[in-house]
């Protein structure tokens, strides 16, 4: 398959590709915005909500420490959610489009 033989505009206009594009955009931006907001809550909380961060909940372990640890869990959670969605849904949708291009359904 050489570069010239692919009609990029046709793929772009194809409904299947449009669905993939829409789903991916919403999903990625949702995760991105959530993770950014959650991350910046940490320095903001540490600076402006110190009384909250100082509350002890589990022996010497306080809210601030748990919140910082939760940042790791959230980051890993996002990685997990994204990879599951991409591995099961996005990859399959992209493969379908590639198959359509290869067997000539999209010209």
């Amino acid at each position, binding site marked *: 398959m050489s570069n010239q033989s692919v009609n990029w505009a046709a793929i772009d206009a194809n409904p299947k590709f449009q669905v993939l594009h829409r789903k991916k955009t919403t999903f990625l931006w949702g995760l991105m915005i959530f993770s950014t907001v959650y991350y910046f809550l940490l320095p903001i909380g540490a600076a402006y909500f110190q009384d909250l961060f100082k509350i002890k909940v589990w022996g010497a372990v306080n809210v601030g420490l748990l919140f910082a640890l939760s940042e790791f869990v959230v*980051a890993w959670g996002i990685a997990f959610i994204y990879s599951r969605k991409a591995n099961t849904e996005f990859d399959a949708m992209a493969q379908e489009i590639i198959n359509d291009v290869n067997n000539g359904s999209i010209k």
Partner: protein
Amino acid sequence: MNRNHINFFLAAIAILGSGAAYAAGGAVADEFKWMTFAVFGVIIAITMAITFWAARSTHTTSEFYAAGRSVSGIQNGWAIAGDYLSAASFLGIAGLISLYGYDGFMYSVGWLVAYITVLLMIAEPCRNIGKYTMGDILAFRNDPKKTKTVAAMSTITVSTFYLTAQMVGGGVLIKTLIGIDYEISIIGVGILMLAYVVFGGMKATTWVQITKAVLLVTASLLLVFMVWSPYGFSLPAYLQAVIGDADVQKQVAKLLGDQALSMTPEELGQRFLEPGLFLKNPIDQISLGMALVLGTAGMPHILMRFFTVPTAQAARTSVIWAMGIIGGFYVLTLFLGTGAAMLVGSAKIAGVDAGGNMAAPLLAQYLGGGENSILGNFFLAFVAAVAFATIVAVVAGLVLASASAMAHDIYVGVIRGDHATPREQVVAARVSSIIVGVIAIIVGIMAKGQNVAHLVALAFAVAASSNLPAVFLTLYWKKCNTTGIIAGMVIGSLTAIGLVMVSPNMTYPKAVMASAKKVLEGEPAQPAKDAVPAVKASSFACELFALDGCVKSEPAKVASPEKPAKLGAAEKLATLNGKLQAEEAALALLAADPVGLKAAQDAVAGIKKDIAATEKAKTKAEEDMKKVEGQTTSIMGLEKPFFLLKNPGLISIPLGFLMVILGSLFTRDKRSEEMWDELYVRQNTGINAEAASVH
């Protein structure tokens, strides 16, 4: 090939030999130095064997820059973690936690969150449309020659900042640990790293990173196991022990100053786990957070890693593994840092290196049995060797990124207009690596004793303000074009650099002079002071810049009691020496009284320690005075900082984005528009992506 291999084995032996000959002083006692060199030797031999093996399959450009795109997702994940866990984050964060507790741990969070941007927005599209460099991504739908030139310049700038910080940090680290001369360490790091890159290309660099990352994680796991197991792996029980430790409480009291006077020991200990001991300016932190979260995705040596895997799916896998390893490692540093604070003591850590970089190595020494034990010194040697391997490997990755920008973007892309023969391309890549490597060694030696702490933050800020806006918008915004990219990259990076040049990161002779004078000449007595409430800056601009008519923000101060005058260093030494003589005279009389003898001996040892510390402070103050002698302003001609934050990201990142947008909106570029469909389809589907080379 063979002659070349023999050459670099000889070079490696020469480095070891010369290192051994010049080593004097350092944290490792002379009688245990042989062990340190043996461990270093083994690790260097392993990396050389890797390079030897990698060199046999490094012939084409794709093999040199991208390891033939045959690195698996998991392998690449380990290599990314290796690239990222540089000496700054491995030794630096453990050190920050050991000195400042909670704030050090909070600082580590941003370094992991950064990978969410890489995972969601950058890794897979770059794999699908890129070839070897960031320039390839930008050139896809924009004017290739112009964008490749700007991309290469930005790549080289970011890499040079990061590389210089690594080189200087590495030289100082090796000097502190085993006493090898600074210049020799730099040349040693340089030659080793060049051997990996020139002979083994990306394949050797990748496997050296993987080896190093595995060693680093193993060593950390072992140390954490030893620190945590006495507490039955209970988090509250362990932290209770940390905050109950007298050393930790003393450190907090020292950091808090007058505030500590009204606090109980329990409160002081608990304060170690609360924010605000180190990071005092929230706006600065948000600015740093922005640079980390967006800068990592624009780091050329990280971007380059995604070209080494066969598919976009493997790129995804590699980021997920990298996030697991990097995040897990930072959780471990919480234990390494607090463990070092409790077992080694913050004062001792800061005494060896003011930035706390020695926390992890000293903890290793303690856990092995202490300064005079064989096992303790073996542990120290091992951690030191891993740190050394870290620096060499990270520098190798950076040199490869700069060399690819020079050879692939500038020489092949711009000068030869993409018409270079495959052989010519490989030669260009190797020659560029040597040029960049030699420059790195020279810059490293020239920067000896310079203030380079800000260079890592600056590298991230430039990557976030220049590389990321360009890469991100060309991937996701249809209207983005050549003019926008050039405007954004040039203005974004210049703003970041310019702001740092006038920021508190630079050396301001008057401030240096004042603090050195305090040490040398002492301080006058101070009357009691009343508490002062916090002052708010008169406007947001006043939080960022030292403008005329601005009221600067100041934190609240507690009431301080009257303070006696402090002696200058010379007088203090005289007093201490007098005390020492008196104690030693008393010692002679106490020979018959074992209990009194022990107490007197302890007192002598304590005074000797004080004398050593005072002498060290005096020498440092004198050196500082000498350095700034006759100067009154920073290299930018300022007496005090104009930009008040240490991190420029808050201003330069939005500006970088804005400039790409404005530049694109005000001009039209037919190619950028025509290529959009192809770029967008390819980045989402992987059609026509560069395939893995078959062996």
